[in-house]
């Protein structure tokens, strides 16, 4: 306990004495962890949004104008036979489709009225089960429907969901690669800054060695100094990220109105935030330890 107190007192005093260099070190860690956690937040929110869109993903089966009753029932039977993929289905007749168009686009309703015939095809609007909407089962269902008599086209949202999923994966990979590089740079910075503090205290270290001070008393303050730098840096990164998330929540909805609901943007889960602080402290600890190894 006494050793810990000594190390803590010396580490905080050293942080204050070398506050310029310490600040540099803290900022390096903060930037590294901000980039890492920032990409993770973007990826997590994107994945959440994709999951929501996936749940709402629809498959539209457009039917020929001259489809027979039997052919329509055959399509319906195919859909009914895939209840592991299909969550709900609704048949829209040509008249229903025209009504829906007029309701959704009232400005264009007059144009539709001016047409000699109803150009909208009858269709089945199929809501897919979330987990299946991006899967192979939905692909197979679409392929089967395309081969069915009376079906003129099948469209569903898989492609752009796949693209967005790709963006989310890219964000995660970028977080790990860029974060890893920046964390490496942070370790080097902490090592250099702690080593500077160590050089500034050569006489003290020499005296400590000669009086037989335990190694923990000699190296401990430097390791703890690095750990504190890491912890403070991680705290700053989380605070900046929290500020960023708040900004997106308040200003974001105006920017992406109708496309995505940014007001529900989520921060890192508490366990991941705690892990990030622990990671920052570990980064600082490693830097401090590498530097302190030069003290016997």
């Amino acid at each position, binding site marked *: 306990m*006494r*050793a810990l107190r*000594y190390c803590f007192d010396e580490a905080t005093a050293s942080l204050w004495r070398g506050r310029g260099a310490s600040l540099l070190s803290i900022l390096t860690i903060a930037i590294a962890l901000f980039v890492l956690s920032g990409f993770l937040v973007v990826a997590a929110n994107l994945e959440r949004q994709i999951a929501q869109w996936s749940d709402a993903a629809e498959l539209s089966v457009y039917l020929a104008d001259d489809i027979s009753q039997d052919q329509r029932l055959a399509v319906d039977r195919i859909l009914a036979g895939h209840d592991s993929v299909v969550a709900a289905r609704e048949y829209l007749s040509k008249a229903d489709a025209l009504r829906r168009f007029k309701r959704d686009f009232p400005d264009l309703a007059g144009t539709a009225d001016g047409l000699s015939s109803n150009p909208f095809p009858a269709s089945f609007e199929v809501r897919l089960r979330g987990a299946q909407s991006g899967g192979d089962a939905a692909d197979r269902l679409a392929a089967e429907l395309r081969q069915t008599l009376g079906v003129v086209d099948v469209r569903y949202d898989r492609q752009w969901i796949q693209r967005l999923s790709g963006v989310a994966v890219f964000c995660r990979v970028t977080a790990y690669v860029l974060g890893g590089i920046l964390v490496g740079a942070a370790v080097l910075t902490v090592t250099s800054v702690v080593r500077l503090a160590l050089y500034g205290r050569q*006489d*003290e270290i*020499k*005296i*400590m*060695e*000669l*009086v*037989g*001070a*335990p*190694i923990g*008393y*000699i190296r401990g303050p430097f390791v703890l100094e690095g750990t504190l730098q890491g912890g403070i840096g991680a705290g700053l990164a989380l605070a900046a990220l929290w500020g960023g998330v708040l900004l997106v929540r308040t200003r974001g909805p105006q920017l992406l109105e109708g496309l995505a609901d940014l007001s529900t943007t989520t921060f890192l889960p508490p366990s991941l935030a705690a892990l990030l602080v622990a990671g920052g402290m570990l980064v600082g600890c490693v830097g401090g330890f590498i530097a302190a190894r030069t003290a016997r």
Partner: protein
Amino acid sequence: MIEAHGVSKLYNRSVYALRDLTLTVEKGDFVFLTGPSGAGKSTLLRLLLREEVPNKGTLKVAGRDLARLTTRQVQAYRRGVGFVFQDFKLIPRMTVLENVAFVPRVLGAGSPQMQRRTFQVLKWVGLQHRMHAFPLELSGGEQQRIAIARALINDPVLVLADEPTGNLDPDLSLEIMNLFREINARGTTVVVATHDRELIRQVGRHTITLAHGRIVENE
């Protein structure tokens, strides 16, 4: 207290700092190590502080072969040895009190005992009234007395001093030597390396003269 048998210390491949040195220092002795620069005085003190180990021979202090000590044993050994340097090696950002208390602090000693003992040794070297001053506010003689107080705070059985009067004028040098004599009078073995022949003559103790790493006189 100190037994050296055939001790040699070699730097590079052919430069001997000490060559086949054999000597004995009894417990409670006061010994001067003297000789010209490069004679091997400081090397012998470094070996006695276990900063280095001999390339040949054995060096024992209080029956312990210093070359065979583990890291923990070296730490334990050094806690019983006080040292004083020519350049004092005080920590400028610490007050006199903090400089002296630094040793028990880094050895994990309790606070009330530490304060009592620190005040005791400062009183003994006559600087209790300057305990809140910083080293750079003190004269050379005062700084060396602080360094001696720091060396004594652990109640060592052996005190080693490397040119402790090298930066002081003759009057102050004698004053510092008197302190070492007092330390010795309390039963502590004292080894002082100095090239100041006049000082040795004035103090008049067991003197070992080194030249080129060998003992040339032991009187």
